[in-house]
């Protein structure tokens, strides 16, 4: 149990001033697409991002039968009958009137949790807390809840990393780097993620084993959204990109997102996606961006292949600033190599 209980110090400091612009501010236009062999990827992947709610269908006349009846026996037989006739509807893909969307909160959560897990302890200190987590666990055996997740991220799952809070107010609290950037209880984040809206995307209904039914988007589906940032340093902007799986160019490596992403026992693969940076624009009130060989003035936009060296410089700055603390993990490769269990 020693390793699990390992005492870690989460590095914390006063959150930076949010009230005035002091640093990089701007927006990234980002797309997200499910991997597809026809686009040169090694996987054909579906994606399901749900609404967090399940719909059931059942026989309404049964419900009418039971109203008025107060006898326990009747109620029990009602429930039995209901269970037999009830079926789960397809778990719907999240949507608004604008169409299918990967909610901004889901994209933000995906990027943030990848970053939290990519920060590993250096000595007895760690740069980031786990803002949402249960208690430390021993390594689960194959087939147990969360075993694949553990295998992928074991390097950062040892030790307590309690969440930062700022409920006593920004003048009183201390938070870790990622809570400062993404926000935590009582503290507004410095980055915002829009909904990623489907671009000509349509869904398909999939019947999976054990009567699991999901609405999903097929391989090659594209979503587009925006990430706003405020008061960041170049290496922190680089971290955001790193959290999307970007490293050497505007196209990220395959990463995992959404429901069923760890499952390899299904007729389809789910959740293998790539983020791609479409443009970077600095706000009129931003500081100029100077990183590596790149220099960008407030109010200007960079797009296309000019983004490649910029991404490399920004992510490079992050890797340099957090050397020995950031690990680059091939989630998709590791999951693919784990074959046993469910």
């Amino acid at each position: 149990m020693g390793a699990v209980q390992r005492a870690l110090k989460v590095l914390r400091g006063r959150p930076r001033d949010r009230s005035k612009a002091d640093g990089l501010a701007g927006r990234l236009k980002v797309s997200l697409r499910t991997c597809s062999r026809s686009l040169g990827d090694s996987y054909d992947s579906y994606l399901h991002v749900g609404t967090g709610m399940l719909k059931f269908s059942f026989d309404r006349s049964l419900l009418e039968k039971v109203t008025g009846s107060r006898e326990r026996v009747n109620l029990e037989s009602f429930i039995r009958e209901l269970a037999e006739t009830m079926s789960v509807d397809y778990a719907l893909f999240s949507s608004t009137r604008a169409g299918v969307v990967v909610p901004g909160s889901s994209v933000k959560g995906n990027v943030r949790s990848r970053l939290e897990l990519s920060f590993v302890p250096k000595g007895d200190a760690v740069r980031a807390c786990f803002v949402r987590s249960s208690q430390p666990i021993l390594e689960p055996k194959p087939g147990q809840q969360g075993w694949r997740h553990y295998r992928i991220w074991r390097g950062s799952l040892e030790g307590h990393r309690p969440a930062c809070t700022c409920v006593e107010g920004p003048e009183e609290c201390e938070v870790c780097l990622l809570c400062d950037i993404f926000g935590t209880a009582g503290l507004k984040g410095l980055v915002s993620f829009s909904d990623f809206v489907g671009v000509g995307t349509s869904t398909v209904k999939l019947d999976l084993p054990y009567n699991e039914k999901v609405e999903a988007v097929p391989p090659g589906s594209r979503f587009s959204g925006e990430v706003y940032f405020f008061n960041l340093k170049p290496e922190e902007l680089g971290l955001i990109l790193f959290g999307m799986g970007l490293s050497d160019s505007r196209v990220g490596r395959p990463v995992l997102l959404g429901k069923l992403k760890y499952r390899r026992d299904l007729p389809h693969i789910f959740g293998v996606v790539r983020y791609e940076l479409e443009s970077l624009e600095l706000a009129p009130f931003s500081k100029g961006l100077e990183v590596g060989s790149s220099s960008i003035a407030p109010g200007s936009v960079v797009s296309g292949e000019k983004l490649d060296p910029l991404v490399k410089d920004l992510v490079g700055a992050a890797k340099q600033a957090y050397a020995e603390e950031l690990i680059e993990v091939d989630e998709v490769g590791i999951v693919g190599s784990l074959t046993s269990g469910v």
Partner: protein
Amino acid sequence: MSQRIPWSSHRVRLRDAVVEGYLVNDSPLRVGAGREPPLGSAVDLAVLRVAIGGKKVPYIPGSSLKGVFRSTAMQLALAKGLHACSGLSGYTCMDQEFTEYGGSTLMGYVQDRLRVGDVMEAIRAFHEKACLLCKMFGSPSFTGHVVFSDADPLDERGEVVEVPIGVRTGIAIDRRTGAVHAGALYQVEYVEPGARFRFTIAATNLPNYALGLLFKALRMLHEGWVRVGGFKTRGFGRVHVEDLRISIWGLTVEQGKLVAIDDKDLEVDLGSIARVEEHKVVAEGAVAWQVVGKLEEVWEQCSARLKS
């Protein structure tokens, strides 16, 4: 005229400007009552509604819009190196202490002068010491020169339009298990994308550079740099402006020219782009955006001179 009344005083009426149009939301929009709850509190949040013509419909209160415009204008002013306060009570220009006023706050000094009947000195002191934002948007015990009406879901004929509402459930992933963290973080009602809210902003006495600052904030809203309502870090509240209409009229509008209102201001000639009457300028649609652009230029040109 050494005793000329400055534009920040309500004792003169130099000009009126009205900006109208529709705010159309591109993303879910949530304007709720009260503050956004902290992360982690599982609550059901309803959108704010108002009764119009017997129907309860979502709307955007003028006070929210004012807050968005003021904080945007503040960022823009600070970026130019100007003194600008947030307007939050306790931290405004009115709360600042001045040695030349015997250590009294601006508010205290102004009230003292008013008490002894020295109105001109009170006006002068406020005009000289308060920041541009306090003069434009107001300050404790000082009514500003820009008024934001509520933005309601009304059509061109002023009739209420049905606004579709959605519900979103927030969930989180447990970092240790990779599975969904127990329980929903929140369930939130939102206005579905595509709703149109009619807005009106009425401004009096604003110099051209101040109109330019107001218009720059409007453009930043239109371009998505700033957003309205709650849940902004989850992408809510992105709006753009449609059917923009600007009219400016009064003593300081002459044949399409907006004359300079103070010694920091620059004259602007809108005669070649807008519809011009003797003391009035009107611009709609793309032309209105050209007017916005012209005045934004004045803001850019004057902002360096406003520093002193």
